[in-house]
């Protein structure tokens, strides 16, 4: 149950790249896809997966391109769509920017990559960093013949051996974004905090890392830890079992975590998201939303090209409130098919450094490598506005 072919098309449906894996969906289906897509767009019934006359089209749009997989079988849809996103990442890694021109300019390497990331329609290996060790953009480097790095088939497929740094460092950012939806009447419809532990590692060799988060649970103060059921009460049959919504990077040993709640891993080199935590609860309720603002401060400009009023506030000290009142007069002429309806919600962006809403803290990050070097961990905390929306009446 595999993909038949991968297409990369421009927005008009012209084929930029076409890699046929199984020979049962010829290139002309690109045209059918675009026709069908247009048809569905016109009737407002467009979906990221389209079935048309026995051929399934799974696609994602990125800048001015469609990345498209076609199949005649019952493929794993989630897997295929994620593969397309991974493919996008690989291309971005290689070409800095992924758009029509960069692909056309690099179509040879793009084909090489397509040959490596998928075989007979089955996703194979999509770690951009490792791929670039044996599929190189610079033609001169090809004089030394490349061999497949161990990582391609190893259990640790995300890290190559033999990495060396003079100074061994780890940067750990604890980033929390606050999602909030407030109705026009002021009631909070949804309020959640999404957390992410973002790492950048510059470590030599094959380091073993262990991460400890704060266990304030014992003091009963941090709600987050309460919800991390595994730290205290493991699958107790009588208690309400509440798993937290945590997703780990593939480097984390999931089975180990399931067993003894240790977060242990061999990190990839460079930047990656170690874990993502959704729906944390805000400890600081005061940050819920910006309400009853009373005084105008800073600058506010109407930016027609963004269809937005941008209000910049230089500093927003605690306990202060600001109010902005704006009047829009509409031109007497309206665009022909502009939808007439209510106003879109107000979106708010902000950032608060050195602060986490949930109170999550990193207790320790141990790095053990057989050469025995000392690694310096740096930890930062940031809270930012995520999807922070206030609906208009």
């Amino acid at each position: 149950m595999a993909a038949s072919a991968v297409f990369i098309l421009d927005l008009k449906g012209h084929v930029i790249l076409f890699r046929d894996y199984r020979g049962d969906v010829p290139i002309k289906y690109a045209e059918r896809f675009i026709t069908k897509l247009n048809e569905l767009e016109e009737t407002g019934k467009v979906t990221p997966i389209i079935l048309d006359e026995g051929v399934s089209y799974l696609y994602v749009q990125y800048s001015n391109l469609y990345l498209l997989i076609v199949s005649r079988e019952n493929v794993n849809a989630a897997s295929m769509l994620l593969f397309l996103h991974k493919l996008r990442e690989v291309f971005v890694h290689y070409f800095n920017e992924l758009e029509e021109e960069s692909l056309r300019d690099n179509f040879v390497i793009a084909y090489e990559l397509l040959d490596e990331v998928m075989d007979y329609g089955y996703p194979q290996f999509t770690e951009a960093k490792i791929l670039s060790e044996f599929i190189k953009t610079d033609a001169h480097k090809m004089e030394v013949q490349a061999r497949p790095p161990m990582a391609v088939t190893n259990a640790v497929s995300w890290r190559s051996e033999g990495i060396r740094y003079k100074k061994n460092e780890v940067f750990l950012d604890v980033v929390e974004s606050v999602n909030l939806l407030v109705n026009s009447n002021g009631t909070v419809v949804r309020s959640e905090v999404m957390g992410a532990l973002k790492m950048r590692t510059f470590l030599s060799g094959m380091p073993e890392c262990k991460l400890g988060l704060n266990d304030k649970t014992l003091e009963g103060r941090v709600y987050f830890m309460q919800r991390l059921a595994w730290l205290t009460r493991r699958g107790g049959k009588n208690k309400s079992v509440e798993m937290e919504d945590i997703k780990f990077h593939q480097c984390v040993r999931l089975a180990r975590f399931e067993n003894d709640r240790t977060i242990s891993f061999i990190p990839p080199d460079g930047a990656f998201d170690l874990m993502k935590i959704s729906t944390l609860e805000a400890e600081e309720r005061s940050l819920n939303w910006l309400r009853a603002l009373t005084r105008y401060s800073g600058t506010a400009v109407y930016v027609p090209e963004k269809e937005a009023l941008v209000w910049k506030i230089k500093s927003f000290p605690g306990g202060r409130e600001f109010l902005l009142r704006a009047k829009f007069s509409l031109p007497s002429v309206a665009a022909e098919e502009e939808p007439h309806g209510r106003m879109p919600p107000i979106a708010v962006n902000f950032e608060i450094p050195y602060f986490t809403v949930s109170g999550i803290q990193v207790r320790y990050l141990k790095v053990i490598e057989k050469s025995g070097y000392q690694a310096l961990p740096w930890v930062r905390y940031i809270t930012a506005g995520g999807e922070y929306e206030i609906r208009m009446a």
Partner: protein
Amino acid sequence: MAVRFVLLLSRQGKVRLSKWYTTYNQKERAKIIRDITPLVLGRALKLCNFLDYQDIKVVYKRYASLYFVMGIDAGDNELITLELVHHYVEVLDRYFGNVCELDLIFNFHKAYFMLDEMLIAGQLQEPSKKAITRAIEAQDRLVEEAKTGIVETALGTNEV
């Protein structure tokens, strides 16, 4: 016979000019362009210059990198429409002198001016290329004169 629309498409499918003599809303216009472009661009050289599209006929002719396309009523004379296309091309060529695509890109408004001296309501108004160029040149002069300060009193000499 009536022309419903005139399109100029580049080999890459970019619209260089679009003129509509039948009332279509923006959505319909976009759809027509989107539908017709691949049909026209995809046709091999030897094939005829006509296509059936919805209830209309599409007559097109390729001049190097540009496709001139006209949508006409189903009962119209396709062959004379080809002459019409050629008529326009020759007018453009006379005006620009060895016209090329770039002329039309940077002077798209002039291409429209010439089309307006050739067609009204989708019908041909002037079978003489010379007369068309004369009219355009006279109007260009009016614009130049206004620019250089010779005031509009000069305008009033023509009979009405």
